[in-house]
């Protein structure tokens, strides 16, 4: 399918979307780049002034930056581990023949359809509420000390919420992969004497490698930008305990009204996301070939 004609036709056909994409991506990006070189604060009313790289220097040398970078990494990695690990587990369970499977599947998928602000609110007000939450009821019933979730374990709480949102996505993709495993291959493995555990590690996991890669890539892109859940629950706090890069940029732009600094932060975030993407492609992207 790669004659010169089809390639030319292909280029012409994708041109409109590429142009649109560039227009919508490039214009804001260029403008952000421009703002990031200015002293431009909405509070002091001064005329924007060209600063060169000073905003970048300030942003990168801000102690909050390193903290928020670490927070971002902790959040992304924890959610990846929980959602992929849990997703494999859920997929294995859903692959069994049980009664009410369709309803079960629907319930498993449901959280994915809840928008982030809403799910964060549900967790904050119904589950983790320090006076009336469901978790409080559980710990009380077990006569355990009751934590104030967002105060005592702020990062863990955010990780729980975000993992809960992404677990269905991972489960669904991994289940699809699991169901495409050839039945005769499974029988061959049984005949070859593979018990459940070797079967999982030698046959199932390698088969799912590609799907796991896709889940990791897609989730990482979205997890680098987690925002609503933090805004709704901890507001980046206590202190800076749950401030990730996205939230730091938000603080600068909309709490400190420092447009120049926030723009520099935004560009740094874009660079970090790209580094992560290249890194991931290198490590796991080879699974996508062949």
């Amino acid at each position, binding site marked *: 399918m790669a004659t010169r004609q089809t390639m030319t036709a292909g280029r012409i056909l994708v041109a409109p979307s590429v142009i649109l994409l560039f227009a919508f991506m490039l214009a804001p990006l260029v403008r952000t780049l421009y703002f990031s070189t200015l002293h431009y604060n909405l509070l002091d009313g001064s005329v924007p002034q060209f600063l060169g790289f000073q905003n970048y220097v300030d942003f990168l040398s801000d102690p909050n930056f390193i903290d928020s970078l670490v927070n971002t990494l902790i959040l992304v990695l924890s959610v990846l581990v929980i959602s992929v690990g849990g997703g494999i587990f859920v997929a294995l369970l859903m692959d069994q023949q049980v009664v009410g499977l369709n309803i079960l599947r629907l319930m498993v998928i449901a959280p994915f359809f809840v928008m982030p602000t809403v799910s964060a609110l549900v967790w904050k007000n119904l589950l983790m509420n320090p006076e009336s939450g469901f978790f409080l009821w559980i710990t009380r019933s077990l006569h355990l000390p009751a934590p104030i979730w967002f105060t005592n374990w702020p990062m863990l709480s955010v990780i729980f919420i975000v993992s809960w949102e992404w677990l269905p996505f991972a489960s669904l993709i991994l289940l699809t992969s699991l169901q495409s495993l*050839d039945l*005769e*291959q499974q*029988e*061959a*493995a*049984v*005949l*070859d*004497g*593979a*018990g459940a555990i*070797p079967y999982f590690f*030698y*046959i199932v996991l*390698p*088969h799912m*490698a590609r799907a796991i890669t896709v889940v990791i890539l897609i989730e990482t892109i979205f997890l680098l930008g987690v925002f609503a859940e933090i805004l709704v629950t901890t507001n980046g706090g206590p202190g800076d305990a749950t401030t990730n890069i996205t939230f730091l940029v938000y603080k600068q732009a909309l709490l400190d009204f420092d447009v120049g600094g926030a723009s520099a932060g935004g560009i740094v975030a874009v660079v970090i996301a790209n580094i992560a993407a290249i890194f991931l492609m290198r490590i796991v992207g080879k699974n996508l070939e*062949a």
Partner: protein
Amino acid sequence: MGSIELQQVRKSFGSVNIIKGVDLQIKDGEFVVFVGPSGCGKSTLLRLIAGLEDVTGGKIVIDGKDATERGPAQRGLAMVFQSYALYPHMSVRNNIAFPLKMAKASKEVIDAKVARAAGTLNLTDYLDRRPGQLSGGQRQRVAIGRAIVREPSAFLFDEPLSNLDAALRVQMRLEIGELHKTLKTTMIYVTHDQVEAMTMADKIVVLDLGAIAQVGAPLDLYNRPDNLFVAKFIGSPTMNIVKGPSADKRGADCVGIRPEHTDISTTAGEWPGTVRIAEHLGSETFVYVDVDGIGPFTVRVDGEAPLHASDRVFLTPRESRLHRFNAAGARIAA
């Protein structure tokens, strides 16, 4: 060791009876072929023996011990699947080594056995490739290699050649035959192709709708089919079946005569008819005749026969080669 005995084995899926009470004895070292039309339960019977399906009733005895309740891995049998069922992410080496790894064999043992199997199957140069990089015939050999290294008491093949092209099929057929001669291990081979069955088997089991129609050596089935089903299934082109006065005269409901056991003449004979088509293949000629009052009839003539469409001909069966069947389709002994 690899004797297998089936006693009244039955299998139903839900309310549908697929295997209807099969009794069969397979001796150690025999090459047994299950043959029958598509859907007659060959694969199901093989899977019952392998332990991939539970029997609904009856007993499976392997090497004198009841294996009905044993799991597939505990029966000491190896199976080669129609789709090969290779592990796509493992190299050929690891595919072949997999059963040994699962049996926790030592690295030296694994290496030695894999090398030997690869040598036998001409796979030595491909050990580091993935299955996806092999041709159909090579994949088939890897699947066989994976079975060989386990040193099973019997091999089970489920239509192993049906995904190969005609030339390769003939070659693999010979290779599997040679393998059997070298290993002298019991083999059960499923096919719907009666040519494969005739050429490979020590013993053929013809299945019809989940029951055994006949068991016997290839030429026994050819020369003395027990019933109409086997008579029509074994042999190519199929046996001609004649009803009516010619059958009554011989004291049968119908008589069967193979195309190669019918004489054709342009002057005189028992059944007059008209040639529809004559296929001249050089070494032999197939003549399709419309016999008056009987219908289509096939005759095979050695060499070149000077016959053409719409010639009038007379057919005469060789009496000693005639098969007689009663109304129930069973053979009437001579």
